[in-house]
């Protein structure tokens, strides 16, 4: 296996692992936003709960944008990998 191919495979694998990390982080942010929003809706709930829930929602949105950006990078990495794996590469 050529060094370039090994590098491309490592890049692709690394992007997938980063995507996995980000999806987990977004899932946690969504869970927290949902949990805090429910608590904020209870009678007598502290105002700050809504604000914190909103921060988690914004964090989730940022992570979602980062996930889409990383997915684009992954598509590019896959294309490069296919190019290097082609018989005439």
């Amino acid at each position, binding site marked *: 296996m050529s060094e370039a191919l090994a590098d491309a495979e490592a890049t692709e694998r690394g992007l*997938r692992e980063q995507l*996995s990390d980000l999806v*987990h982080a977004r899932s946690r942010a969504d869970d927290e936003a949902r949990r805090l929003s429910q608590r904020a809706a209870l009678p007598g709930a502290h105002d700050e709960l809504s604000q914190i829930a909103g921060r988690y929602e914004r964090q989730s949105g940022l992570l979602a944008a980062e996930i889409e950006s990383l997915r684009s990078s992954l598509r590019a990495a*896959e294309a490069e990998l296919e190019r290097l*794996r082609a018989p005439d590469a």
Partner: protein
Amino acid sequence: MTALASARARMVPSLMDTFLVLVFLALIAGGAFVFMRGRRQQASAGPAGPAALPQAPAPEPIGGADVRALKVGDVVNYEGGDYIVEGTLRFDQGGFRWQEHRLVDGPKSLWLSVEDDEGLEIVVWKRLKGAALEPGPGTLEHVGVTYELDERGRANFTSEGTTGAPGGGKAEFVDYESGGRRLSFERYGDDGGWEISAGHVISEHVLDIYPSRGAGG
């Protein structure tokens, strides 16, 4: 001829015989080694194709990760959703193995079964809550689809992560099918009720897998 000379005369053919026997044994051992090595190479390459056609290369893992190696913590991108594998059931029926993974994306959840028997079959399942269905007859009808009994049996299983099933034991299953559609009944332990699921076969190519760190595969 003296007695000594006679003895020497008898010894010379005896040494020749020994040498020939050793050469013969060496040839047998060498032949056996070459034969066994050939068999090992053949076994590792799989069964020979008809008329010695060249073997097709093994397919590249789909999306950089093999769905057969899916495990708790991995992420599966399917139909626009990023599903986290929250639980895995591993079944073993007399050496034949398959897996069922519980995938969760926020409020959405589904099951993915992966079976590699004469070809890879991947099925996406939805649990049916409160369906008035009982396994047993040769055919079953559900939402306008007539399913035919495919298989029933028992298998050992182990559970990892969050599956809703106990950690392990015996499971009973009854599978129905209709083309690419599937209907499955599963029961864990002797006193468990039937879990009913409806599913459809999908191509592995529609899945994109993001393995968790330290996946090693």
